[in-house]
């Protein structure tokens, strides 16, 4: 693999602490993500990985710390601001619109790209119709990219799990995000499906230059894909560095295995 180079820092979280009542979910977490990077967040169950993503896209509001995205520093993010500034995401437990078709799900990802107001939309003529067609083309390109033409019109609630994950990725991509947050995109997949998903993640990063923050449990996948890895355990930051550094970090090994590595 050739040497990968990255741009400036696109996202930096600094001293983030988040608690629900007496439970401290995140404790003083700081890391950054560079433009074009694939950045993994790993850790045992309950480490606070998903909470971290929820802080980044504004579902959770941390009590302390700051989030700097594209040069703008905030105490907290709002979901709408996150989406409109170029952050898209997928969810650990698939959160698709189950009653809708694959195509419609992906079209919702274009939501912020479409601007015509409700009056044109209500009449379904003129600018609204043209806009609908343009965005439809963009959605079809994503469908081609993810190789899901066969299920375009199927309601997603009836699709097998692996395909649902793929549609969810499609919906996130439809927003043409600058930063893509993937929460366990390969959970529950067989090895073939995992390979497909890995390939899509690499292609997205390569072809569109999308920066990716990835939560994943499969260490093989994480070590293959990631440029840098941050490790959380019980809300605390254990390590941050290149995959090889993290792999040989004693604290990380202990957290994962509970015993010293041989």
């Amino acid at each position, binding site marked *: 693999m050739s040497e990968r180079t990255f741009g400036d820092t696109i996202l930096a979280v600094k001293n983030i602490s988040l608690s629900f009542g007496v439970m401290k979910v995140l404790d003083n977490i700081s890391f950054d993500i560079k433009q074009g990077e694939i950045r993994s967040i790993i850790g045992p169950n309950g480490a606070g990985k998903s909470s971290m993503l929820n802080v980044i*896209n504004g*579902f959770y509001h941390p009590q302390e710390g700051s989030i700097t995205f594209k040069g703008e520093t905030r105490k907290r993010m709002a*979901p*709408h601001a*996150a*989406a*409109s500034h170029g952050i*898209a*995401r997928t*969810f650990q437990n698939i*959160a*698709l*619109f*189950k*009653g*809708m078709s694959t195509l*419609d799900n992906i*079209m*919702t*990802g*274009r*939501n*912020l790209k*479409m601007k*015509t107001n*409700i009056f044109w*939309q*209500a009449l*379904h003529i003129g600018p*609204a119709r043209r*806009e*609908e067609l343009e*965005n439809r083309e963009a959605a079809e390109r994503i469908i081609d990219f993810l190789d899901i033409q066969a299920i375009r019109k199927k309601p997603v*609630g*009836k699709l097998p*799990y692996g395909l649902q994950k793929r549609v969810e990725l499609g*919906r*996130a991509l439809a*927003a043409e995000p600058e930063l893509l947050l993937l929460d366990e995109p390969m959970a529950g997949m067989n090895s073939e499906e995992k390979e497909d998903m890995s390939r899509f993640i690499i292609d997205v990063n390569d072809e569109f230059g999308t920066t990716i923050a990835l939560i994943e449990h499969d260490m093989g996948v994480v070590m293959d894909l990631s440029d840098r890895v941050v490790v959380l355990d019980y809300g605390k930051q254990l390590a941050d560095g290149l995959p090889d550094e993290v792999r040989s970090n004693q604290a990380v090994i202990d957290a994962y295995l509970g015993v010293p590595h041989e």
Partner: protein
Amino acid sequence: MPTWGFRMSEVTFFIEVALSGLMAGVMYSLVALGFVLIFKASGIFNFAQGVMALFAALTLVGFMEKFGMPAWLAIIGTIAVMIALAWLIEKLMLRHLVNQEPIILFMATIGLAYVLEGIGDIVWGSDVKVLDIGIPQGASDYMLDNFNIYIEKLEIFAAATAGILVVFLAIFFQKTRIGRALRAVADDHQAALSVGISLRTIWVIVWSVSGIVALVAGIMWGSKSGVQFSLSLIALKALPVLILGGFTSVPGAIIGGMIIGVGEKVAEVYLGPFVGGAIENWFAYMLALAFLLFRPQGLFGERIIERV
């Protein structure tokens, strides 16, 4: 030789009964439609839907009588009032109840029903008002001359309006960004937020649309039997319609209303004499009960598919 012995006049009489039931059913459908819209987009059972129809009709009559507005201007004015109302409901009620249990939101809409009824009473008075916006009245001569069937012009007009409304809403829901956003919000709040859909905007839109549907229902009922406070009771008839058609289906609301309308009229006329009449009052509820037992999602409601 045995014959069925139907005479032409009996057949026409049956058609007449069924048709008048059908038209009454369309009226129920119009109210049910407002329920479906709000339920679809927010999972809230809006107890105030019937009162919204009353409130809209009262406002319309008020604008025409007290301010002497022509019908078209009064309708535009009332639409503006219904949109403002939706905005207020979001700001004062829904916003503060995000992530609450459905039952709590339902209770809030009961409160809303009383508030709206009170405001309507204070502002426009509680006497029965005549609503005439120029919808043709009386029997349709065309139907009477050609088919010997008695049917009110108003009822034909109401049916046509309901039909147009449904086509319009279906396209709006299926083919536009906002329609997709509405369905998205109904399916999954978090996912909707993550693609940049604003829940608040969606709620204002959906309550506005259902306010406008309530206005249409209010106009039809008001033209038929005057604008009076018992109008809010038709909301009760919309309930069996919803159970029949499914809470989430726009076509379901329409067809459910028609089935109940026809069913209760036919039952009243043909079975009524054997049980002492008044079937019309309970038929809808019995039918709803049967549906609850055997097909709780209704005719067109979405069966919730859960993958385990």
